[in-house]
């Protein structure tokens, strides 16, 4: 029987300090007080002073609360029984199912040896043209959705999860609104995906420290599934809440903040989670999609900024659409060469023309005269937005490429697109009736200002 301590020396924020000895760094303890029972973790050892972060928060913890150490660091149970279940960040059931205690694994384990990683090579199909065509998602990629509160980023995550051909979905919810949590759950349930899903959910009303456990629990479980050969998709929403929880703890611990109150190790903390994305040689993979809300729509805010430095690209979700500019899948070139011969052509040309459309819009708003070419671009831009950018569109990559040709053929002559003749000869729709005939007036390639 381990010794029980019942004299708390100091309480600050969610951190309590007691005097104890022979305690391991990061060891877990159970704190029992009149307000209930909570797990706590050692976050500092100094002489015989042991500081513990109380997961359920220190509110109501009295100085005579009982502290019992468990002799190990944070663990979660791993087995097939997790599938279909919903837990808190700490691994307690949130549904009405039984608590799981078999096959406990450590969370926050060591990183994969870079020499054992392989170059990612498999596309993940989502049915969303802005992703599949323009910024292809790749198995083992880590990619956040940058957006502001109110944008449907959770719907987008859920939709990608349902569409993607993965074996296991793990949802890590941090500071989720209760409604969002329920709608995630219902969406997965209705589509029958719940049975291949595990959820670790922290909602906005739960103790803040539990939020910190969500990514580690989710990723530890993901890692085990991946080692068993499963392709795992991990959704983390919202990583800004996770970062804010870290900020709160750091301030309690009187750490000197580096930037807008965030701790100096924000980058390392986020990176150690995102870097869990991996394609194991000879086993499965982990792909991570995160949601990162940008306070004040400011991408230079420390959370999106540090995230951008860690992830392999980002999707900007704005006005309910994935922005074609700024959004980038840094791994797309590893897969989009082997999909269909015209994939890269469509990707580059349609974006170039869309950029031209944008500068035409600008000219139009400045009151400059619209040329024949400008008018073609205006039609094109509208068609592109409706056919490709609208998130309700759900078509295969191949259909999206075909649609791309149709949209272009509807507005332009082949030579106006800047696509090499060899390619247009092969792919330009044969029955196309180009709406615009006025060739002389349309310059072949208008330079776009930087």
């Amino acid at each position, binding site marked *: 029987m381990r010794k029980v301590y019942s004299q708390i020396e100091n309480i600050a924020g969610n951190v309590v300090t007691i005097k104890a*000895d*022979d*305690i*391991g*760094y*990061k*060891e877990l303890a159970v704190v029992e007080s009149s307000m209930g029972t909570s797990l706590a973790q050692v976050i*500092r*050892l*100094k*002489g*015989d002073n042991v500081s513990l972060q109380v997961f359920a928060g220190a509110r109501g913890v009295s100085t005579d609360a009982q502290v019992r150490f468990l002799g190990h*660091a944070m663990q979660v149970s791993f087995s097939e029984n997790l599938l279909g279940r919903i837990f808190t960040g700490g691994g307690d059931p949130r549904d009405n199912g039984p608590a799981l205690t078999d096959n406990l694994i450590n969370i926050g*384990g*060591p*990183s*994969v*040896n*870079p*020499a*054992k*990683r*392989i*170059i*990612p090579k498999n596309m993940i199909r989502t049915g969303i043209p802005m992703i599949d065509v323009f910024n292809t998602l790749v198995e*083992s990629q880590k990619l956040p959705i940058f957006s502001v509160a109110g944008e449907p980023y959770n719907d987008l995550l859920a939709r990608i999860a349902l569409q993607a051909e993965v074996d296991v979905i793990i949802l890590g919810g941090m500071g989720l609104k209760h409604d969002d949590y329920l709608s995630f759950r219902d969406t997965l349930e209705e589509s029958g995906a719940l049975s291949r899903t595990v959820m670790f959910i922290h909602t906005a009303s739960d103790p803040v420290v539990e939020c910190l456990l969500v990514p580690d629990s989710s990723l530890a479980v993901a890692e085990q599934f991946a*080692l068993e050969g499963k392709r795992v998709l991990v959704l983390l929403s919202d990583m800004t809440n996770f970062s804010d929880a870290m900020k709160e703890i750091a301030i309690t611990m009187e*750490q*000197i*903040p*580096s*930037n807008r109150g965030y701790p*100096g*190790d924000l*980058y*390392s903390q986020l*990176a*150690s989670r995102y*870097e*869990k994305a991996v394609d194991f040689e000879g*086993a499965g993979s982990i792909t991570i999609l995160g949601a990162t809300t940008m306070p004040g729509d400011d991408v*230079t805010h*420390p959370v999106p*900024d*540090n995230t*951008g*430095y*860690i992830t*392999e*690209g*980002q999707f900007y979700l704005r006005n309910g659409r994935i922005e074609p*500019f700024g959004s*980038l899948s840094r791994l797309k070139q590893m897969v989009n060469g082997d999909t269909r011969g015209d994939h890269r052509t469509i990707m580059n040309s349609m974006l170039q023309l869309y950029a031209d459309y944008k500068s035409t819009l600008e000219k139009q708003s400045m009151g*400059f005269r619209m040329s024949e070419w400008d008018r073609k671009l205006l039609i094109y831009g509208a068609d592109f937005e409706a056919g490709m950018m609208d998130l309700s569109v759900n078509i295969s990559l191949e259909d999206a490429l075909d649609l791309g040709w149709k949209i272009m053929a509807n507005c332009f002559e082949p030579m106006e697109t800047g696509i090499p003749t060899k390619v247009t000869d092969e792919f330009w729709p044969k029955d196309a009736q180009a709406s615009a005939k006025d060739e002389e007036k349309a*310059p*072949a*390639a208008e*330079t776009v*200002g*930087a």
Partner: protein
Amino acid sequence: MATTTGKIVGVNGNLMTVRFEGAVSQNEVGYAVLDESRLMSEVVRVQGRNADLQVFEDTTGLRVGGLVEFTGELLAVELGPGLLAQIFDGLQNPLPRLAEQCGFFLQRGTYLDALPRDAKWAFTPTAKVGDSLTAGETLGTVPEGIYEHRIMVPFALPGVCTVEEISPAGDYTVIDLIAKLRDDRGEIHDACMMQRWPVKIPIKAYEERLRPKDPVVTKIRIVDTFFPVARGGTYCIPGPFGAGKTVLQQITSRHAEVDIVIIAACGERAGEVVETLREFPEITDPRTGKSLMERTVIICNTSSMPVAAREASVYTSVTLAEYYRQMGMNVLLLADSTSRWAQALREASGRLEEIPGEEAFPAYLESVIASFYERGGVVRLKDGSEGSVTIGGSVSPAGGNFDEPVTQATLKVVGAFHGLSRARSDARRYPAIDPLESWSKYASVADDELVANARGILRQGNEIDQMMKVVGEEGTTVEDFMVYLKAEYLDSVYLQQDAFDPVDEATSSDRQARVFGVLSNILNAKLSFADKDSARRLFHQLTQTTKDWNRVRMDAPEFEEIQKKLESMVAEVAHHA
């Protein structure tokens, strides 16, 4: 020497405080004993009988009262044949062999020899018994892949030594005795092919430092022509996320005309290192005909690996670079990203509760950065030959704003600044080095006057572009419009370079001088046009043709043809005054 031991009295993140008996020194290595494993750590501060150590591993499970054993040695690396083509972590653990032993995951407390002890190397002595030698002079050589690797008198030996014994030619391991050296006090030192050197101390076994003057040809046009890097010089690449810092360094690591490239992947993505380590063995280096890997060493402490080891990794890298420089080689060290290293310093400083400077970076940030870049340089060795270490570091400024401590401290000490701009990378103008902001103090591969002239046109073109955004094309004169077109032309056919085209990806210095000469003539030509549209049309054609030219090998007959075509296109509209 009596080993010092101590007991843990505190743990905070990766910092542990140890009460010790005996003597410890700053930066000495100690091991925290935890069950079966020993966690490596380094003394970073001593206060009375307490030493603070940063632990190079995850500290979970360490407890107050735990045993710490000090080694009496500073953090050091192994130097000797067998470093090339290897992949190490920041503490010089060979990652592939670690994977063989531990599988998918890194295992804390597992340390392997950097240089395999069983490999044999064909040693040929060059020194004879009775020779008087000093540290860094050659005892013999072994072939290491494509290079002749010098086995040198250990750098730590003081004064003049006499060779007492030297092994005959033959195959030896790195720990076999190959020479006995007597120093001037009569003490005998054993030398083998491997020596150890503390990473935080520069190797100075050379005659003198020289001023960097010859260019390192990177084959990136905007660099070599406009913002050159000198052999033994230093430069930095700051830029917001996704602007192309890593790609730029990857391209440089492939094409740069140097003997050895050391890639320090410092706190960045593991995936990027994987690309290098999987691809380099497949790529043939045109200079040697062998795989690129044979001239490369990768030091990789990626972002999820322990933070303290990240701090060590840049020192490990630069020490290996200095080692090969001692053999008369030109070494290029590419560090991506030095900001992650600075952040590691910040984390350690925060835990030590030091008084923070700007953005919580420690007050000594500047001097630490300065002394790192100071380790670059060209030196004249004791045998008269020259060797160099060129250092290029990427910087990842918070919010992409160059007005932050790491960028500013770096700018003070480097010789060239390649600033990447978000505007250029968004417009896919790669490499996204901003031609108006960047600078270099080194000599260009092209004619200085022509370069100054071209930069003038770029600047004017930019001003006119800004103005046109307000007044529209209608409100701009044909003359101004032409300057704008010239600037755009230079940008798209020379500053921008297609990293994925087999020819365009690398432009030799000869070719740069030639092409830049032709372009300069075009930029300086007085052209007359009836209107803006005809000017635009010509520059469209020029752009298209010059881009085609960039994709043609210099030894192909077409190369001359296209040059003539360009010249005649311009001649048609030139003034004949």
